[in-house]
């Protein structure tokens, strides 16, 4: 079989493996909805102010809420298949549209965070590993330990106090200065300016994680036989570290980057609500406040799908990076 065909078979296999996970998530979603006090009709009635019991029963029949649970589950799954996530009465919009509108800012925040955390994590881990147990290594280790223990929202608030309120370097909230009507390049610069603090805040924890991982991974690789061989060949230490060890040490970091996406989305709920960044997390925070359960479930579903998708991409990326991994 040709390599391309093998690869597409692998992609297909991984896609099929993702299906049961997605189905399970939808089922969990459905039962969470069942657990909640009151149903869609109660919400509707609440919004309308008052409704007679007869009218509510009529509505329940119309929405199929009087059917057995399994039938309702079937209908729910069918709706999910067409990405019909229900209706948000607070925003007066379909949940799917609301959620998709807010997806881009969150993706922007996540991409910049992962880039920063992985990039600097690799550099710091490298520095720590090549200065083992010297002051540089110790400082980096202490930094990693402290970042591990600090709640994200607190970091965000403290950054606001120092960099926004005292030094006035960065804006406290939002994604762009809407009142300025920037266009083109100016708008990009404005958004980048707003992006700095949320990204720094969200990346701190992951920076610590990748630094520790990179350090451990470098140390592990450094004791391998191929390093001894390279040294015996008379290669310079520089070349050994940057060409031979680094490449192999990167693999666990890439895997971890994929695994952490789920918790990154969770972290973005907190960071976005601290900095009023108009993404999914901020939407979740608003949904919490307005008790908009449908919307919250929609966000949960979309973020779970996002994790599944990103894990898939990372797996594929991994198989490109490391040819030893069986693709067939």
């Amino acid at each position, binding site marked *: 079989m040709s390599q391309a065909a093998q690869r597409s078979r692998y992609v297909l296999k991984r896609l099929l493996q993702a299906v049961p996970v997605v189905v399970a998530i939808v089922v969990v979603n459905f039962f*969470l909805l069942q657990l909640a006090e009151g149903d869609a009709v109660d919400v509707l009635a609440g919004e309308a102010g008052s409704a007679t019991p007869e009218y509510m029963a009529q509505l329940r029949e119309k929405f199929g809420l009087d059917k057995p649970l399994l039938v309702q589950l079937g209908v729910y799954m069918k709706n999910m298949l067409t990405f019909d996530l229900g209706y948000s009465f607070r925003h007066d919009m379909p949940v799917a549209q609301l959620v998709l509108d807010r997806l881009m800012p969150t993706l922007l925040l996540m991409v910049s965070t992962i880039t920063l955390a992985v990039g600097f994590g690799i550099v710091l881990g490298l520095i720590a590993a090549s200065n083992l147990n010297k002051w540089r290594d110790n400082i980096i280790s202490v930094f990693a330990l402290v970042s*591990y*223990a*600090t709640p994200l929202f607190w970091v965000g*608030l403290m950054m606001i106090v120092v960099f926004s309120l005292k030094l006035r370097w960065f804006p406290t909230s939002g994604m762009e200065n809407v009142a300025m009507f920037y266009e083109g390049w100016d708008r990009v610069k404005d958004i980048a300016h707003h992006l700095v603090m949320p990204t720094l805040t969200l990346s701190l924890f992951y920076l610590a994680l990748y630094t520790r991982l990179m350090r451990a991974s470098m140390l592990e690789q450094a004791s391998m036989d191929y390093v001894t061989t390279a040294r015996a060949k008379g290669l310079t230490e520089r070349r050994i570290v940057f060409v031979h060890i680094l490449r192999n040490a990167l693999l666990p970091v890439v895997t971890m980057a994929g695994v952490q996406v*789920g*918790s990154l989305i969770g972290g973005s709920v907190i960071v976005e*609500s601290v900095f009023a960044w108009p993404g999914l997390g901020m939407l979740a925070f608003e949904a919490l*406040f307005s*008790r908009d359960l449908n919307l919250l479930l929609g966000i949960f579903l979309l973020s779970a799908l996002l994790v599944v998708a990103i894990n898939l991409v990372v797996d594929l990326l991994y198989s490109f990076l490391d040819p030893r991994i069986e693709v067939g």
Partner: protein
Amino acid sequence: MAFWRRFCRNRSAVIGLVILCLVILIAISASWLYPEDPFKLVGRAMSPPGENGFLFGSDTLGRDVAAGMAHGARVSLLIGLLATSVAVTLGVVLGALAGYFGGWIDDVLMRLTEMFQTIPSFIFAILIVAIMKPSINSVVLAIAVVSWPAVARLVRGEFMSMRNREFVQACHIIGMSDWRIMIREILPNCLSPIIVTGSLMVATAILIESGLAFLGLGDPNIISWGFQIGAGRTVLRSAWWVCTFPGIAIMLTVLAINLVGEGLNDALNPRLRERT
């Protein structure tokens, strides 16, 4: 004691233990240090730290930040311990079943574990608390539900590696029941990694709890560090101390527990060095 000596060899673990003991001491003596209800308005609002008799200042309504922190220490430790015990129990039971019996039980339980590891855990926790209404019970349950998979995987691995050992085969031969073998024979042999993972989970649980409380999902009747920070964020501009000190408390506590956890790791099983 050999264990204690090995623990003390790790200097940072000892520092962690000292900090942790201080936090526990403050939590225990909270109602003696600050007998008043921490929600009570006790003085001038927005007093800076050190003024009007407030060690860490007062908040927008004139509540004592330091009193809230002392009482909050109880909540954080309590929820951290409770959530971890529930999660560890759940994880040990499921992991032990999967690892000991293997076959389809293992398949089903591992798929379940994988699914729980895939879904974004913090959002899942938010959903659970929001649906069940915020209370200590719902917060504990939510944290436990999102943190058991790590324990289950660990215990499964341990049980799998032990189930074919000679001492287990010997137990089979003398006619011991599966339950007895699992609980009396195998479980005690994999206690140390469980203790290490559990201790680190307490730290994570405290962080999750503070995040939930910050978003307004804490039990409304008890004060907690996350709640204090969440309530103080609106006055960040004029009263930075309301948010700052409870945050430092969270950081120190979590740091201390992490250090103790790593010390336990070194002391209990020198093999398992890397924490993932």
